[in-house]
């Protein structure tokens, strides 16, 4: 009897395997709509960008290792620190979190077989790749953006920056923004509509709540950046006057528009880290998250409140006290949802039975740096203090603790955590721990002295400094720290690279994880789940009887859904079964459309407006062909 049912299950899997087979070779990757393959492409592209941004960081630190260094010319220094900021924020962290982690994991965590709009998902990736190439083309041609990642006018105006350096920034960010907007729409619909039956919103993993919050924040924050960049390009290329005070414009309009985007952006960067933390902590402490509903609400609240605090980046521009005090108070309110989460993580670790393996170590490091960076952040909400240290190295210290220590540490921990899921092999635990401690210490040595340098008056963005300012020793220490930090990161890459070939093979669920991605094989098959699981708690893998039920349904061939790329749509709130969707398979049109967009932006940059128009027409025709092959009515 048992053998019959096993044979039956094998036959079902064969059928699914055939239905979901991908094209072979390079063409398979270019035309893929599989969220896992797209996630992997995002991962490696973002990793390359991380490398580029890291090299830029090391160049900066090498230049500042002592007074009067000449590794970089002043002009090159401007380009390098600007590209470092743009790369790390737009081309590394966001694509790595939403693109790679979100893409790969969210459908697996909610028990779906793909994203809601698989072709749009592919388009997001190709646009991201195009925008990365676009912005780095500027650097390759010696015209990289050079006015800092927030690109203040009038420095960034045509008068003071006559080359096309800034145009790579302006058009590049609009281009990049299309990718993030499409991706966030895709995540929201996926999370709302494709959850496994029974995964009502209150049973959704906190990881997904974090990504939902990020997607909404991106959706509403990006338009402000795109409009600001459009105004900038119109000013620079067609002689408009949005930011030109002499003709009724206002440079502060740029600052407002930029930071209306820029502050939510800070939370967009850090929220996925919160999500990864809430995925790793329960697994390694063997208990449920403390205050689950409050943490879910706090994640949403952080994203929401992030829209009301932007002027705290502008305390020195001379706004009336009433305005600045309002924004200082609003900034302090964010402490509440952040604190709820912080205490929840700590309480879960303390009251559980923590097993300090590499992934959890990264989360502990993250908590330490989030607290330190958060404390200096609270201090910066005090207006007089902010005015004192504005544009000094204190700010650099604050946001590198938050962005590197807090936002990137969970990404690195997440790489270790999900490595067995992606590859079916285990990384080396000892080297994993070593890489953590190296990076942890390197981070502290690199960024902590910056607080002191800031208080000593060292301004940010200077390409060198004279001896005898009392800055020399700390700068040298930071530069040494940067190399230690970098070697920690190299250890991670080596560990994972070698383990991919040599690591011991491990089972589907090596951690006894709590969410659904651990229920399927490692690496997961193209169809993710043989039968769509049913869920009755936020920790579906710990509900053994539910998973037994899945197995029995597979043996009976029940609810297999194998007449195409099929997945289940459920109702938004209660996740009751609604309909069976047929998802599109491979398509060449997403990369073609991205290529046309690249053409449009490249021609806008080169002032060939009619050729840009021609690319627009071609892109429109490509979109029409895209819809020639119908997918589910979605």
């Amino acid at each position, binding site marked *: 009897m048992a053998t019959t049912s096993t044979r039956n299950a094998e036959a079902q899997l064969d059928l699914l395997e055939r239905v979901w087979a991908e094209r072979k070779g390079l063409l398979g990757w270019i035309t893929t709509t599989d969220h896992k393959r797209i996630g992997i492409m995002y991962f490696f592209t973002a990793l390359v960008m991380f490398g580029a941004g890291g090299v830029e960081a090391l160049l900066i630190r090498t230049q500042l290792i002592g007074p009067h260094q000449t590794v970089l010319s002043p002009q090159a220094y401007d380009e390098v620190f600007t590209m470092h900021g743009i790369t790390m924020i737009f081309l590394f962290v966001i694509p790595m979190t939403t693109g790679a982690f979100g893409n790969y994991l969210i459908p697996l965590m909610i028990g779906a077989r793909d994203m809601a709009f698989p072709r749009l998902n592919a388009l997001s990736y190709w646009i991201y790749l195009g925008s990365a190439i676009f912005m780095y083309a500027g650097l390759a041609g010696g015209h990289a953006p050079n006015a800092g990642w927030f690109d203040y006018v009038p420095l960034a105006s045509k008068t003071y920056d006559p080359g096309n350096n800034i145009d790579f920034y302006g058009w590049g960010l609009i281009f990049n923004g299309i990718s993030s907007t499409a991706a966030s729409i895709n995540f929201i619909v996926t999370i709302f509509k494709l959850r496994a039956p029974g995964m009502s919103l209150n049973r959704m993993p906190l990881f997904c709540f974090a990504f939902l919050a990020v997607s909404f924040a991106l959706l509403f924050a990006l338009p402000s950046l795109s409009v600001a960049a459009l105004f900038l390009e119109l*000013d620079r290329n067609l002689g408009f006057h949005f930011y030109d005070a002499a003709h*009724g414009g206002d440079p502060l309009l740029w600052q407002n528009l930029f930071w209306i985007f820029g502050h939510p952006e800070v939370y967009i960067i850090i929220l996925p880290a919160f999500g990864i933390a809430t995925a790793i902590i329960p697994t390694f402490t063997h208990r449920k998250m403390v205050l689950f509903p409050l943490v879910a609400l706090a994640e949403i609240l952080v994203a929401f409140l992030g829209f009301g605090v932007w002027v705290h980046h502008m305390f020195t521009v001379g706004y009336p006290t009433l305005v600045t005090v309002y924004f200082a108070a609003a900034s302090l309110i964010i402490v509440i949802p952040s604190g709820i989460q912080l205490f929840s993580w700590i309480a879960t670790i303390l009251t559980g039975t923590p097993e300090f393996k590499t992934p959890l170590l990264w989360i502990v490091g993250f908590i330490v740096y989030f607290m330190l960076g958060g404390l200096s952040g609270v201090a910066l909400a005090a207006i007089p203090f902010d005015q004192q240290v504005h544009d000094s190295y204190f700010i650099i210290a604050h946001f590198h603790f938050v962005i590197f220590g807090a936002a990137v540490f969970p990404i690195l921990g997440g790489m270790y955590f999900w490595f067995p899921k992606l590859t079916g092999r285990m990384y080396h635990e000892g080297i994993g721990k070593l890489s953590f401690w190296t990076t942890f210490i390197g981070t502290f040595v690199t960024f902590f002295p910056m607080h002191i340098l800031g208080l000593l008056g060292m301004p940010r963005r200077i390409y060198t400094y004279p001896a005898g300012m009392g800055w020399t020793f700390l700068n040298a220490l930071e530069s040494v720290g940067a190399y230690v930090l970098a070697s920690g990161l190299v250890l991670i890459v080596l560990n994972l690279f070698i383990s991919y070939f040599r690591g011991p093979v491990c089972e589907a669920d090596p951690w006894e994880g709590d969410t659904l991605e651990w229920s399927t094989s490692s690496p997961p098959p193209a169809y993710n789940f043989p039968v769509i699981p049913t869920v009755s708690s936020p920790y579906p893998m710990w509900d053994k009887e539910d998973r037994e039920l899945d197995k029995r349904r597979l043996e009976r061939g029940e609810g297999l859904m194998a007449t195409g790329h099929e997945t289940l749509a459920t109702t938004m709130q209660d996740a*009751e*079964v609604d309909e069976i969707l047929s998802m599109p398979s491979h398509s060449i049109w997403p990369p073609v459309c991205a290529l046309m967009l690249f053409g449009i932006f490249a021609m806008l940059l080169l002032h060939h407006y009619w050729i840009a128009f021609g690319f627009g027409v071609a892109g429109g025709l490509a979109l029409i062909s895209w819809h020639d092959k119908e997918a589910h009515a979605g």
Partner: protein
Amino acid sequence: MSGVSPRRLASGRVTRSAQADRAAAAALVARQRRSAPNGIWGMALFLCSEITIFGTMISSYFYLESDNKHWPPAGIKPPSVTLPLIATGVLVLTIVPMFLASRAARRGARPAVLGFVSLALVVQCAYLAVQILLFRHDLNQFRPQDTAYGSIYFTLLATHHAHVLLGILLDVVVLAYVAIRGLTNYWLTAVRNLAIYWYVVNVIAIVVVLTQLSPSL
């Protein structure tokens, strides 16, 4: 838990939307759904982004106004009110045929869909033509390169007109596909999305025209 039960899935009572390639079957699927399909969600969220773009531009308009003593600046006449308001009023009336087209689509009535969308298309094209003439007329009075007023005035209007143009192109594509393919499940949702797109663009038209005319109101 009745909806959750995998038994409902096994019993074959869950609809397979992709197999609904005939109008009647697609209409049945649309009626049996218990929540909005993915496509509607996608369009709604896309429009959130577009609304935010207009919100940002309109905020910028008033921000710049607050910076300037004279708005519009000396030498530029305040905008004339009558024609833009009438044009916008006529455009907003297309909500009616768009609503009817959307409802006809859910009934599976292809000729009615084609008729209502075509009717709206004619009015929308006329609106765009009038707006382009007005735009050229304004460009003869003052230029976006003169002052920040001109910059935001023409950028806001051009962005709005671009959305009208996009809507017209969407009309044409949807009309063509529905005429050739019929109201399959895919194109049924597309007709509904087209209507939603135009509802939002019409409301944006009202806000944009009121912003544009605000110095004269």
